[in-house]
């Protein structure tokens, strides 16, 4: 799992990527984001090779957040072959995040 910083990196790894990608749009000052952060790490480990997991700090990468109309954190988005397929806003149980990944 890694933190994506630039739009170029995002385009290359997510939009032009293949397979399933989970994106966690977060902010360092957001309590619920910090509450679910451990789940995101666990999912990245458990689903290694199956799902790519990236975190986007919305203060560091406001352009990416804007591109997807993110107006709340945490927002979790799932991409498949570069296309957004589902989205959840707010802290969610780990089981629900896994369910979203299918």
């Amino acid at each position, binding site marked *: 799992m890694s933190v994506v910083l630039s739009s170029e990196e995002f385009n290359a790894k997510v939009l032009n990527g293949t397979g399933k990608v989970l994106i966690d749009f977060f902010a360092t000052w957001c309590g619920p984001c*910090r509450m679910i952060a451990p789940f995101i790490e666990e999912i990245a480990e458990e689903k290694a090779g199956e799902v790519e997991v990236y975190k986007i700090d919305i203060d560091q990468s406001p352009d990416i957040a804007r591109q997807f109309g993110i107006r709340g954190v945490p927002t979790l988005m799932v991409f498949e072959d570069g296309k957004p397929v589902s989205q959840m806003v*707010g802290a969610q149980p780990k089981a629900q995040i896994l369910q979203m990944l299918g």
Partner: protein
Amino acid sequence: MTNLQVDKDPRVIDVAIVGAGPAGMTAAMYASRAGLEVAMFERIAPGGQLAQTEHLENYPGYAQSTSGFELAMSMHEQASIFGAKLVGEEVLSVDFSVEPKRIDTAFGEYRARSVIVATGARPTRLGLPLEAELQGRGVSYCATCDGNFFRGVDVVVIGGGNTAAADALYLSRICNKVYVVHRRDQLKATAIYHKRLADIENIEFVWNSEVVKFLAEDGFLEAVRVRDKVSGEERDISCNACFVAIGTTPNTEFLAGALQLDQTGYIFADEQGRTAIPGVYAAGDVRQKELRQVVTAVADGANCAEAAAEYLHE
């Protein structure tokens, strides 16, 4: 967070605590410190509503105010030190008519000699069309989480209690203009907020009014329609975000009749947190009470743990 899985076999937990907010974590600390085996069941992660509070300026002992998240993590650490375990599973149903009492999660069945319900409350939804669709697209229940997305634009806060007042104060530092829409002609919030808010230039009160409609464009909130309850007149306030702070709803659906609730869903309990069922207690925002604060939640947690310890020693 380390999820220490409790052995799911016939082993019986002394004290099962449902919910790991301030009340649950304090109950866990007291009960485990009293030598009891304690498991906290939590659907998301420890902290509850406290973890999303920007800062607390009225928690005793923190004169310089403290971050809600840091305080919550510290409470969890403190409970862990005395041996309380965290089970990261949502409790879906309970059966208090059997001994030991039964708790079911999506992952299995647990048995406990006593149960402390500390599931707290969640922000109440307005129940308007588009509300769910616009969550994360302009409609929010957490100003400190989402306020930063609305730097320099106009926003609306609905409500007149302490949460609405704190939200308006926080947002006034970030946003261009903050409209506070309240159904009464004055705030219900603690007196200290009244003057503070009145002194802020970019806060405008919309008294005796309620939001009756969310207006969206391209999937994002554009305005709210407000009705003046006195004149009956309606007008649209254009805004990029609307923060709903109209109170809380208790998380008691999972009890499904296992405990007696009041009309609004809060659990009846006595001063020590005892419900009508021996060995079952209620602590924090989920119980019927006058003042719902972190400081009263932790007090409830301590009382319930003591009551449970007493019950188990009988």
